[in-house]
């Protein structure tokens, strides 16, 4: 036996794993360094030449990462708010106040069997949730969250938005058709009819806004509304707001327009045959859509990330700028946690009979709370994008709450009432809004 075999046999399991993994990692590292050394200048040059492309990829990554927590928060809100409206407690077991409930929902989807019934058109069946989820995720790309914080500033942002929400219809129709189930088929066809009908007033309602702002870029629209609360388009386009909210609810398939998944009539509509994570994608897409519609309402009519009144921030507090302290900042970084913990632990240690260790733990936790609070406060007053994010999310979640509230309150409309409402009321109202807006603009300008 060679010495290599003997050595190998004397290793335990961990040793063997390391013996395989470490050389591979080393080799990979060397190769990476080599490639970076050779191709690095070219790559940097390429990226420097193609900043938009880089930005696009980064934006898509960020957007995908953002959708999941957004869906989690909206799902939790829905569970909790509707429970309160129903005089129930709602989720309160997992995490503090049940906040981890949506995570458990997600894990449940992942752990369930991914089942496809006999007779389904498997390729279309598998692709449908992807299309639906993709459609709602991609709308995130053009929403301006804060000054400078947006995926892409398209000059045709609004058109892109409607194209993406139109993609959702295709996905639902695919799901309904491929499921080989009559309930699914009815649900898919209902969704097609409903979304095609409501897409028109939804689009036309925004023509007034576009006429006012003179741009279709969402970022420019927000900038056009910046200033104070009086500059928001809600005061100049109230009718458009009403049309947009109603059509947006229908577009997001929310109650009272959730006919596509009316469980009392067609079980779960297009999602009847879906289980596991495939259903999870529909589920997440629905809640992401709720947030997207809320965010769009805020962007178009409530000034996006702008503050509702003359906001004095961001202010630069020169004394607290840590980068200006030089080496002093490093020393502060070392000393402040220790001193802070001790100072905060002292009253507990002195006043009650808890042990030193417990007092220190309490002090440490308190210090963290205070430090994070101070940090956020500093960021809030001195970084404009943090302020923007705050206002954007605050306004958006007001409308998310509004949607959840509707779901807890209203019964469902019937399909003929739904279609009649879109074509007989919303569409003429949207057209009237366009003509009146255009006329007023012409009169004011002349």
């Amino acid at each position, binding site marked *: 036996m060679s010495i290599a075999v003997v050595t190998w046999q004397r290793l335990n399991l961990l040793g063997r794993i390391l013996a395989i993994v470490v050389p591979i990692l080393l080799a990979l590292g060397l190769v990476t360094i080599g490639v970076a050394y050779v191709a690095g200048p070219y790559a940097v040059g390429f990226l420097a030449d193609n900043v938009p492309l880089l930005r696009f990829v980064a934006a898509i990554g960020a957007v995908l990462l953002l959708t999941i927590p957004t869906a989690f928060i909206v799902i939790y809100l829905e569970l909790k708010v*509707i429970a309160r*409206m*129903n*005089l*129930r407690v709602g989720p309160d077991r997992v995490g503090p106040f049940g906040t981890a409930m949506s995570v458990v929902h997600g894990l449940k989807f992942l752990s369930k069997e991914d089942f496809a019934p*006999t*007779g389904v058109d498997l390729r279309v069946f598998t692709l449908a949730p992807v299309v639906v989820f993709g459609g709602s995720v991609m709308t995130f790309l053009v929403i301006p969250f804060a000054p400078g914080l947006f995926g892409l500033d398209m000059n045709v942002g609004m058109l892109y938005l409607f194209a993406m929400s139109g993609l959702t219809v295709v996905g639902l129709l695919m799901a309904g058709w491929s499921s*080989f189930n*009559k*309930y699914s088929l*009815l649900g898919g066809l*209902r969704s097609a009819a409903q979304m095609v009908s409501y897409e028109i007033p939804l689009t036309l309602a925004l023509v007034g806004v576009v006429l006012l702002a003179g741009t279709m870029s969402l970022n420019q629209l927000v900038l056009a509304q910046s200033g104070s609360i009086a500059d928001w388009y809600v005061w100049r386009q109230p009718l458009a707001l009403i049309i947009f909210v109603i059509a947006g609810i229908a577009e997001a398939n929310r*109650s*009272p327009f*959730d*006919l596509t998944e*009316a*469980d*009392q*009539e*067609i*079980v779960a509509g297009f999602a009847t045959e879906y289980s596991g994570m495939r259903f999870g994608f529909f589920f997440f897409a629905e809640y992401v859509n709720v947030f997207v519609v809320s965010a769009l309402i805020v962007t178009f009519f409530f000034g996006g990330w702008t503050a509702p009144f003359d906001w004095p921030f961001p202010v630069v507090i020169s004394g607290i700028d840590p980068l200006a302290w030089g080496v002093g900042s490093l020393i502060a970084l070392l000393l402040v946690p220790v001193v802070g913990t001790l100072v905060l632990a002292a009253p507990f240690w002195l006043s009650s009979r808890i042990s030193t260790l417990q007092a220190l733990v309490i002090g440490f936790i308190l210090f963290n709370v205070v430090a994070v609070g101070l940090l956020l406060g500093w960021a809030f007053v001195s970084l404009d994008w943090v302020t923007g994010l705050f206002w954007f999310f605050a306004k958006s979640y007001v409308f998310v709450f509004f949607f959840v509230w509707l*779901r*807890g*309150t*209203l*019964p*469902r*409309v*019937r*399909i*003929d*009432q739904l279609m009649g409402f879109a074509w007989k009321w919303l569409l003429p109202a949207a057209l009237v809004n366009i003509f009146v807006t255009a006329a007023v603009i012409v009169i004011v300008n002349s």
Partner: protein
Amino acid sequence: MTTQTHGPHPSLDDPSISVEDVVRESIVDAVPVARTEREAEFYTLRDGELLLNMGPQHPSTHGVLRIVLKLDGERVVDIDPVLGYLHRGVEKLCENADWHQAICYTDPLEYVASLFCEWAPVVAFEKLADVTVPRRAEYIRVLTGELNRISSHALYMGWFALDLGGLTPILWSFIERDEIVEMLAAITGQKLLFNYFRIGGVNGDISHEFMSRLGDWMSRAGAQIEANQGLLNENEILVRRARGMGVLDRETALRMAVTGPNIRASGVPFDIRRAHPYSVYPELEFDVPTRQEGDSLARYLLRGDEIKQSLRIIDQVLHEMPDGPVMATLPRLIRPRPGRAWAAVEGPRGMYGTYAISDGTDQPFRMRIHDPSFVHLQLVSLLTPGNLIADTMAIMASLDPVMGGVDK
């Protein structure tokens, strides 16, 4: 309903056809062999029509009802309720139990308002056995019965909203029902199937807990029920969906032997408590509310009116209830004289009737149970065609069938 599934599928022997296709085809063409003219007509599809099997597992078929819808797009062309998924043979079971035991078989027939399923046979058996019920027992029966009626109607109003897509009202209406059920549990020991009425009286006097709970509830019941109805009664979506939907005219209602709130919503003031009085109802003051429209909305609103009348009755009963025994003195095993007796009571869904034949032994020779839900379910196929799928639910929920009573 038999389907053509006897023997292997003919094309299974053909190697050129895949199993997938056979399964697919057999799912699509699962049309039963017609046994009657009506079935033959129903299962013949014209161009563009589609059969949709709703139930027995479906979110809104109120138990295990299966309805086959013949659809033209979203429009219902024809509808065929298929019964029997909850059949237990209660009438036959009753024939093999003695007179006392028969009551607890009829109890679970209608699990939402089970006191009324006890009341009808009890009255019939008392007629057969010539028993005089103590007046206090009669008052207790009326009191508990009206409480049960309120709980059933409260639940109905929640169900109706739920079938129209409203989430909240059902949970609000459970507040009333929970309170009443707790009250009844204080004297009967049960929350769903009370089994409280006995031949010759009731099983035990009302207790202190019952009275304190009842007093507590009565002081706020009116306002609370108003609040619950305020959630929905003037909701534009609900009114638009229910008004003019499933109109049951007076003649059809009489012809189809509809009873209870459903016929009163069609303008016929027929209430067994007034038309064929029993118990102490002749001594009590209450109105028989009627509505003329005969649509789903009228049926829904009429239940609200009835709750108010029930509260009125409870108020009077509490003031006028006499002291005394709650059970007549009877032998443990009764052998009524040979004969026949019919008794009917006004339940929350209509007329509960029992027709009992005695041959002089300690068991019923024959027991026939009339349940209103069965009668009302027949209306679904009259009222629904021509409407949309969603209206099937609105109409069925407004008729308020309970499958336990339908299938017996």
